[in-house]
């Protein structure tokens, strides 16, 4: 697994001085890196959600034929090696993405995993997103309940409503608290594997953090007593975060062992090329799954209204701009190229997951991933027939190799209900505008 280009030698000698300079020995780090014994008898299932912005060229995305005999379309063709682990869905409508008087792009992104229309008046409000509902259950077993990553930072000019707050993340812990998304590979690496070069050092740091949080809790209680009657919403978020990190430290402490996995070099920086950035971040996600650091992730490949350009594939135009192609053939071709390129990047991720041994199978066999968007026809900001591809075997629960053509207008939220049930998350029979699970998945 290539996580980064090698920029540093592990041990560097000061020339002429003969003094060895010990860099942090990354492969000696010992987080809770023990892969679980993933067996058919006691399967571990993992779930992930990947967001792609600005809709797709639907004509080049959806296969014509339904069922197992479908033919690959230009945009999805790269996925063909993983056919048996894929289900292409069509006919899904995402009504919560209807913008009303708000701006179409941020609404589509916010609504994607929440299946709720965002509200800004009188305080920001959305809904707990599907990944976080999964994390409440699956996150009980891992140091990090979930991981939220992004390949793009927010932009002010690309915001057409003055309120694009909702395009900064796709993951909300609660209806009022979004999770920030991390884009720097080194920061993600450090979150996964921590400071500290040995098991003892790491144990010491964990205990230090735990005692800091104990002390912070005392301070919060004192503060709370002196406040009198006032709004404590923000304080509550802090308290909740303290609790969450405390739980995490306990899990790390319990699972702190010597790792049998060889860790890659610590990434240095955000790679300049988008493709490399995606590769590094997908690599870290695969590693997080393999090391059982988390079983839930979200990845934002680009923000809605993203104006990223892709000269590397012959599209020097801004993504959002070109997505409003207005039926111009050259613009359609370029947007389709961007669609295809992202699917290729996803395919490399699936390659990695398929190669990674996970108990009696591969990570791909045991995972359940959704790749999709809150917009269908980006040109018209349409949210009917949104793209959605399920990948992975979900430990025997997802039968791949199919194009499932649903009755037109089936709520996208039904996919979440189905997915959450497939990974044994209880109490998620209804979600947003869902009408029930999707039959035959």
């Amino acid at each position, binding site marked *: 697994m290539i996580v980064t280009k090698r920029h540093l030698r592990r041990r560097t000698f000061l020339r002429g001085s003969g003094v060895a*300079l010990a860099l942090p020995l990354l492969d000696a780090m010992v987080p809770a890196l023990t892969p679980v014994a993933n067996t058919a008898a006691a399967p571990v299932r993992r779930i992930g959600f990947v967001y792609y912005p600005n809709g797709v060229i639907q004509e080049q995305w959806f296969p014509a034929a339904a069922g197992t005999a479908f033919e690959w379309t230009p945009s999805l063709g790269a996925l063909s090696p993983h056919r048996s682990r894929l289900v292409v869905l069509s006919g899904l409508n995402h009504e919560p993405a209807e913008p009303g008087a708000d*701006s179409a792009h941020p609404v589509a992104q916010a609504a994607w995993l929440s299946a709720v229309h965002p509200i800004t008046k009188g305080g920001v409000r959305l809904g707990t997103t599907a990944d976080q509902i999964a994390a409440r259950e699956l996150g009980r077993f891992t140091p990090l309940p979930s991981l939220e990553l992004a390949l793009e930072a927010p*932009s002010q000019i690309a915001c057409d409503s003055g309120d694009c707050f909702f395009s900064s993340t796709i993951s909300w812990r609660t209806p009022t608290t979004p999770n*920030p998304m991390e884009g720097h590979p080194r*920061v993600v690496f450090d979150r996964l594997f921590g400071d500290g070069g040995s098991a003892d050092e790491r144990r010491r740091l964990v205990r230090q953090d735990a005692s800091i949080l104990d002390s912070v809790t005392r301070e919060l209680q004192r503060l*709370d007593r002196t406040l009198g009657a006032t709004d*404590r919403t923000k*304080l509550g978020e802090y*308290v909740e975060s303290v609790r969450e*990190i405390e739980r995490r430290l306990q899990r790390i402490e319990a699972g702190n062992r010597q790792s049998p996995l060889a860790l890659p070099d610590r990434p240095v920086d955000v790679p300049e090329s988008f493709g490399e950035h995606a590769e590094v971040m997908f690599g870290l996600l695969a590693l997080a799954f393999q090391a059982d650091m988390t079983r839930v992730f979200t990845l934002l490949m680009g923000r809605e209204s993203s104006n990223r350009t892709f000269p590397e594939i012959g599209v020097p135009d801004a993504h959002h701009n070109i997505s409003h192609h207005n039926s111009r053939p050259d613009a359609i071709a370029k947007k389709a190229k961007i669609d295809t390129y992202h699917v290729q990047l996803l395919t490399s991720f699936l390659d990695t997951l398929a190669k990674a041994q996970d108990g009696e199978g591969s990570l791909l066999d045991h995972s359940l991933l959704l790749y999709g968007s809150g917009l269908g026809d980006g040109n018209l900001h349409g949210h009917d027939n949104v793209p959605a591809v399920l990948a992975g075997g979900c430990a025997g629960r997802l039968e791949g190799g199919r194009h499932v053509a649903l009755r037109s207008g089936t709520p996208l939220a039904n996919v979440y209900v189905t997915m959450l049930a497939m990974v044994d998350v209880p109490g998620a029979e209804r979600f947003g505008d869902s009408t029930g699970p999707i039959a035959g998945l």
Partner: protein
Amino acid sequence: MTGLRKGAIGLTVWLCVTPGFEPAHGAQEPGVTAAGAVQRAPRALLDRYCVTCHNTRLKTAGLALDALDLSDTEGSAETLEKIVRRLQTGDMPPAGQPRPEPAIARAAAGQLASALDRAAAANPAPGAPPAFRRLSRTEYRNAIRDLLALPDLPREMDVDVVLPPDNSTTGFDNLAELLFVSPTLLDGYLTVARRISRLAVGDPTIPPLVETYRFPLDLRQDEHLDPLPPGTRGGASIRTTLPLDGEYLLRVEFAGRGAGTEQVVTAIDGAEVSRVPVFGPAGRPLAEGRFLEEPLALKAGPHEIAVAFVQRLATTTELLVRPALRGRGTQPSMASVTITGPARASGPGDTPSRQRIFVCHPARGDEARSCARRILARLARLAYRGPVAAEDVDELAAFYDAGAAEGGFEHGVQQALARLLVSPLFLFRIERDPAGTTPGAVHELDDLALAARLSFFLWSSLPDDTLLDLAEGGLLRRPEVLHQQVRRMLADPRAGSLVTNFAAQWLYLRDVASRRPDEDAFQNFDEGLRQAFQRETELFLRHVLLEDRSVIDLLRADYTFVNERLAKHYGIPHVYGSHFRRVDLPADSPRKGLLGQGSILMLTSYATRTSPVLRGKWILDNLLGSPPPPPPPNVPALEESAAGDRPLTLREAMVRHRANPVCASCHARMDPLGFALEHFDAIGRRRHRSESGAPIDASGVFPDGTAFDGADGLRQALLDKRDRLVSTLTEKLLMYALGRRITHADAPAVRAIAQGAAAQDYRFSAIVLGIVHSAPFRMRQALPTAPSGVAASTQRPGD
């Protein structure tokens, strides 16, 4: 009495803006019947021009102006402010509909506004921001800088890397309601607190630092780069802070092939320390594996480490024969520079951070604890921004005790510091409502809360000792003290945050970094030009805002700041060298003010072409304060060509787009503004033909009928609306100062501040002082109560 006085002000405004206009009856009887005066002229105007759409039956945009009681300045304030704004900006009635004479519209707006101002003066509504607001990432970084004397953090612990970004798409990233706390963020806080406390104290066990700077692929290294030593080309200057005295390894990774002898020069804090040959006569690398490794003996603390190639005289001819494509240049270049260390650390040294922290050194073992408490109490007062309770020092001292037992005095202080940096009292700004206040009641902020509002507004950082001393002495609220402190703070280098934090977000300048103009269409764009754009605008804003010029200069300044590269790009002759200097622009220069600067022109363009829509929208958002609503859903974007026809020019396409009435009302406002700037291409170069090859038509008309042509014409038209620029800047600055969205209730304060600034030639300090003395800044409204006990309410793990 008050009514009379205010009435007189209303009258002045009225007469000023309506030369030659027959005064309406309202103005003839100032202050006599305030409500009656408000009623007549505006009512007639609304009845004539507005109620055709905005009436009880149609309720267009939710407004029924026929049924609106114009004297109801309390209950209908929101609608009345909307009317005032529409009349002032001339955005309504929509283009093509009958509209009042601008003078009459402004007069009516003035009349409504003074009634609203009177009502607001009698009943201020300063707003109720959340009682808790977390520091933004920028504020946290600056607080660390000022608390621990750490101007430049190593990238390992760079707050801007380790902490997740705050949302800035809603205007500013310091809006209290959008500063959330998450486990991810707290995780980041714990990490940076641990690393920074070890750096600041000079922890001898700190893991080696790996500080890598990677050169952008399109930063040309053929030329001299500011601020590197003269006689060099390419290279980088790295500002960082080293934790310990000791040996550090400098490692330079090269890229590209050499044609001749090359040398690399290294300078520490401006003094050359070495000059090493790296490529031989035939351009063969001398250094093993295309790396240069050089040990450096360095002291702990802040350093500027510069590495660059020695400029060879022969290279100019090479540049003539090889085209300058986007890339690292035609000569050997650097791919990365890494500083690693320390090895053989010899001690913590004497750094500014240690001087700041260790205000005492225990001579005997039994003095250690009291010395530590002194250190911690002092840091806590600054970090927590006020007097510190004994219990809060105890909390820190407990960490000192544990740490000291484990690793001695300094280790103890480091552990306590790591704890302090995640304290809620540090991470949150807390504004308490006085005991017994009823929800909604207005009260003046106490001195300490005022000190914090001041310092986070003007410095994006903690109050310093001076402010805290004044606040604790109860003196800060005195108007003359406050005034003097604002002057002092604006003169302090920390006020640079008004440029780098406020203005950069106001004008979207942060986006300049992520723009990628098309490589084919804009071959001479590269990282060097991008950096020049950023530098020009930053220097310009510094000059106007911090040297206290009239903010109207933002539009009209006949000077700017350029280096050779940028001057060539702009066509300004006789500017040589990489350093930036102020240049005067000729009287007919199209470059005057912000609208002629590459940064703004590029960030409002697409990668392949200009966008009159983005440019127009940027002007409406940021200069005129009248942002258009989001585009309606399911409306196709531009039709750029009809099948079989020749390609439409952008203007023709926009005309077609505007033919759709749904699009027309907004695009009629945006597009003309943007088209006026069409003589500048997507990277701000002058041009006479558009991307499609058609000659440029840069004429346009405001919805109110004012015509203009080209950048100059637009600039003049905007200067005629300078009151809009001032109100918009005031509104943005107030939003930033308060960290909350601006509502209709703030409009009276904005008007008063802008009018006050007018009397002082719109100097920036006049606007700042106006804000600081305004009700929204000095006061707050008590929040609705919520049950206490949040901190104890959630189940703790293991309970």
